């Protein structure tokens, strides 16, 4: 199950962060997303170590915490998507697919003429779409 999804801007500032958890670890998810930015930086700045992942937007597993797995995705405009899941056994293809759909939703949201680039995403439609994508991720992996 995806417990958190985040969009992070150029200055490593959160543009959108939504957690899908009922337990009281929302703050911890913020921390996890924030920490994962270090890994993204590391991968982007030291392309030698992660040569296979540089050419594509999908950054793969960023780091495992004791209960979560964190995946990253870097768009061409250097906006970062971070996804935190509690599933310990996730197929890469599922995650890729998820990010692809999420990216599409993000592109639609920032294409809104009333959206100012670099500001937080407040669109309700985007939030709804994201929660649909997140829910379907659970279904896909179950199925």
């Amino acid at each position, binding site marked *: 199950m995806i417990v958190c999804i985040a969009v992070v801007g150029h200055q490593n500032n959160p*543009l959108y962060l939504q957690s899908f958890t009922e337990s009281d670890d929302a703050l911890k998810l913020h921390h996890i997303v924030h920490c994962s930015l270090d890994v993204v930086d590391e991968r982007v700045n030291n392309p030698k170590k992660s040569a296979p992942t540089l050419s594509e937007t999908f950054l793969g597993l960023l780091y495992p915490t004791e209960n979560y797995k964190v995946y990253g995705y870097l768009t061409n405009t250097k906006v970062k998507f971070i996804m935190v899941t509690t599933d310990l056994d996730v197929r890469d293809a599922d995650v890729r697919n998820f990010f692809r759909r999420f990216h599409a939703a993000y592109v639609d949201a920032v294409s809104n003429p009333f959206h100012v680039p670099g500001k937080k995403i*407040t669109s309700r439609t985007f939030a709804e779409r994201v929660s649909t994508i997140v829910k379907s991720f659970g279904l896909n992996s179950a199925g």
Partner: protein
Amino acid sequence: MQEYPEELRTPPVALACLVGCPDVHALITGNLHSLQPPINTIALPDFSKISVISKAAKENPAAGSVKPVGGIVKRDWLSKHRTRVPAVVAALFSSDHVSGDPAQWLQVCNNLENIKATILGRNIKLLVVVVTQSGSKYDTNEDRMISLRKHAEVDSKNLIIFVPDDPLELKQSLNRLGTACAELANAYYRDEGRRVKACLERKNVGSIELHIRYCFKVAVYAEFRRDWLEALKMYEEAYHALREVVGISTRLPPIQSLVEIKSIAEQFHFKISTLLLHGGKVVEAITWFRRHISYYRRLNGAPEVIFLHWEWLSRQYLVFAQLLETCSVTVQNLTTTVSIPADKQTEWEFYPPYYYQLSAHYLKEKNSYLEFAISMSEDVGGIDGNVESVVASVYVGQFARLLEHEGTYAMQALTDDEYVRYTLAEGKRFQDSFEIIALLKRSFEAYNNLKSTRMASYCGVQMGREYFVMGEFSNAKQVFENIASLYRQEGWVTLLWEVLGYLRECSVGISSVKDFIEYSLEMAAMPIMTNNAAPSFRDCCPAGPPSLSQREQIHKKAFGLVTGESGTAPSENNGLKVNGDCPLYLEIDLVSPLRVVLLASVAFHEQIVKPGARTMITISLRSQLPLNVEIDQLEVQFNQSECNFIITSDQKPRLAAISHVHPDRRVETAPTLELPTSKWLRLTYDIKPDQSGKLECIYVIARIGPNFTICCRAESPASMNDLPLWNFEDMTETIPTKDPGLAFSGQKAIQVEELEPQVDLKLDSSGPALVGESYILPVTVASKGHAIHSGELKINLVDTKGGGLLSPREVEPFLADNLHVELVGISGQERADHSEVNIDNIQKIQPSFGLISVPFLNVGDSWSCKLKIKWNRPKPIMVYVSLGYHHSSEPSSQKVHVHKSLQIEGKTAVTISHHYMLPFRQDSLLLSNIKAKHDSDHTPSLALNETSNLIISAKNCSEVPLRLLSMSFDLEDDDSFIIQPKEEKFREPILHVPGEDFIKVFAVIPMGNCSTLKTGAVSLEWQRDSGLGEGFYSCSASSQVTKHRLPDVNVELPPLVVRLKCPPHAIVGRPFTYSVTIQNQTELLQEIKYSLADSQSFVSSGPHNDTTFVLPKSEHVISYMLVPLGLGSQQLPKVTLTSVRYKAGFQPSTTSSTVFIFPSEPPFQVTDIGETRFVSVTE
């Protein structure tokens, strides 16, 4: 890792035992220890002590297990093999004893038998060493040696002759002994390993526990042999076998069973990790660690002792982190070269901080569960005092009660209940918080070193929380403050909210009301708009969940505290208070995070203003606080404090407590000073700056209540940064001023111009200056509208061309010669009304700079002075004169400046030239002239004792007429060089107009006979022509002197002098005499050839062509009678003379042989002027 016993932490070292001959033990021990791999030794001084290594009564593992197995691995097995059970026994015998009398030999044999008996059960290898002296080496009884070897049943190579007293022999013996020891030890461990392995392979091991134990033993034996691969394999097998025990072993109660398994798994895993990491297989080690953790993490155990599980897990991470750290060099190399499978390991898993952090996390988990368990047990009835006698049992991971029974001790197994109580009692004894902080700190520092600031921050947050829980508020505050800046910078509002919440509580803890208010206000002004905080945020931080209502609550609390008027009881504020005794003063600068609380933007409507003129200023305030803020008084401060003013609200009566402001201050009122949320409060006032210069608004100070002040640094709207945190919010942009142009270009500073000077400064130029004279430059200061107080006149002389001003370098001492132009004085300081001149005025004069003070002048007065400037070389310069004055007598009044400049050319007045001429119709034969004919710049030659003419010509190069006063010579030697007249003062000054030449002829008679005669200089005295006798320039009467140095001359005695003689004019048909006189000044007879050329205009009589001799020191005259035939200016018949001795010819010049023929007697009287004729061309 440190808590593991040493034998587990370090790789095992083989053990040898030395018996007998104690005097050589030290030698052998040292040598064995320095071997590679080293061998430890037990040294037994005599053979009776051999029993210490003898085998204790113990069942043979090969004999099968009849008794139930007590545990998996014995606690002291490893240390026993490292310290007590040797692999080799070296029996040392003295050669004297071996080859000694039968009694000694018998003793040797007995001892050997004893050893053999002792080591038999353990299969320990035997090595026989015979210690002998180098001298008696060959005295050894061969038979006895052979017999000894047979007795000992050792190979010949294991019978070593040891010679301690010869260095070479000693070395050989030690080498042999070392090799034999190492070989035998290896053989021993191999045999032992094989023996145990054989048991394993026979599969007749009674229980799984024994199977694990045998695997472990084989692995340890392999380690003794340094067979790492075998060791790793066996450890892994043991580890896997151990898993099978989980849940099925009923040997122990369930809780203790799991504890034992985990303890052993921990040891096995430690061994495996160490072997892998030291073998450089980092990736495998990490994978292994992951598997280890993922398997055992599920085995939580019974809920009442679940804290043991977390403690165990924490230790796993800690130990692995330490292991990883010890071989971190290898890790660094590996991560760059080995490509990591994308989904296998991630970057952080290669770095120790990751594990440290998790270790801390689990330790914290343990802590919380432990606290819970302790509180539960206390509820049940406390922990009984029966735990003291519980000790670690002989088996790893087991505990037992030690019972003392009639002087003997016995172990009694514990029940689970007892065990739980024991662990709780143990757990209570230790405080883990420090350890958690230490772990987090390590992780924090390591992450920082890796430049992973966010990871480090997370560790920092955890560290801070731990400090906070422990009540160490100042430490917590320090940690949190560091982290807060990162979160502020990156705009992680939620994380910042948490950190600030802790900081706010820490401020309460350390009773810092200022910090408390600062953090409260920052939190209240954070961009959190949602009101329904997610339930998941509950209780996550001390300040409550991030929500709008929470912000409002914090806002109210903070303002309640600072104004002191809300109903909050002091107890609620935890002793924090703001009152008259401890007022609160906050300062907000351009980088303060509190800019969101109060932002002051100040814009002048104009950029430049005249002093005294009014201009508008707009002060815009903005606050992001969630509720409106009522400001009681605003003070605007400028760098010119006279402009400061105060704004009060006219709605609210001024508070008595804050009305004690400067009485002179201007007080303005505003309709309202209520600051609405996220909206600009714009206040526009006019302001009248009086002082020139920059007027800058520095602070806007808001006073809220009697004791609370916020001092906010003013910002220009043009260069205002975005609000921190809010710049990422999606909200409409607002501008601080109504006028958008002003919002983009407005500045908080304005330039106030200087006062318009109402004083005239006049420089009167009188044309170009002349080199040498003291040029007078009159300066007039005339007041038109300002009285002049303490005026100062500055004069600067500057070269118009820039470089090389007056002196080549400033540092050089000022020498008059170096200066081309200098200011020599300022004179004639007088007022137009001729009143007294202030004597003690400042006067500073330097060659290029002058400073004088101007006396007080009333309106309408004027004052003038004269600058005296002297040019030493012709050079154009710029004179800058500036007057600075105060227009009123108040010292605070502004200075006003007037500047004037003038370019002045400096010119040379006269140039003097000279040349020498011989007298008319007289020529001297100067030999040097003949010789040095070709030298172009030869010095002029003059005839000794003969009169020559010196013609001095002075040219006026300036643009002004001059008056020439006199001309004089300064001769170096009056006797040897006579000039006539030596000095001539003109009767009245001669007007010398520009461009004209003034020529004067002097007679020169050189007297001294020397080749180069120093002559002297000619001086021309002149002065400026003052025009129509107007005496304006009082100094113009002083004359200047221009000097011209005459070059040295050659003086020599001419051997021959020729003079022509004829009348100045003639009349047609009337004969006259034309004679040529040749004077021989030598002591020699001179032969002279001469000839006369015929001329059509004259009829001549006399010798035409001849050679004559002139006697020494005598004259010869050749005379002709001529009758003129033509009229007008006629050429006389040309006479040519040639000196045979000097081969020098003479021909008179055309001018000197011309005569004017009149047709009849001219109507004037001719007087004979003789031979000496002076001709002055000008006359």
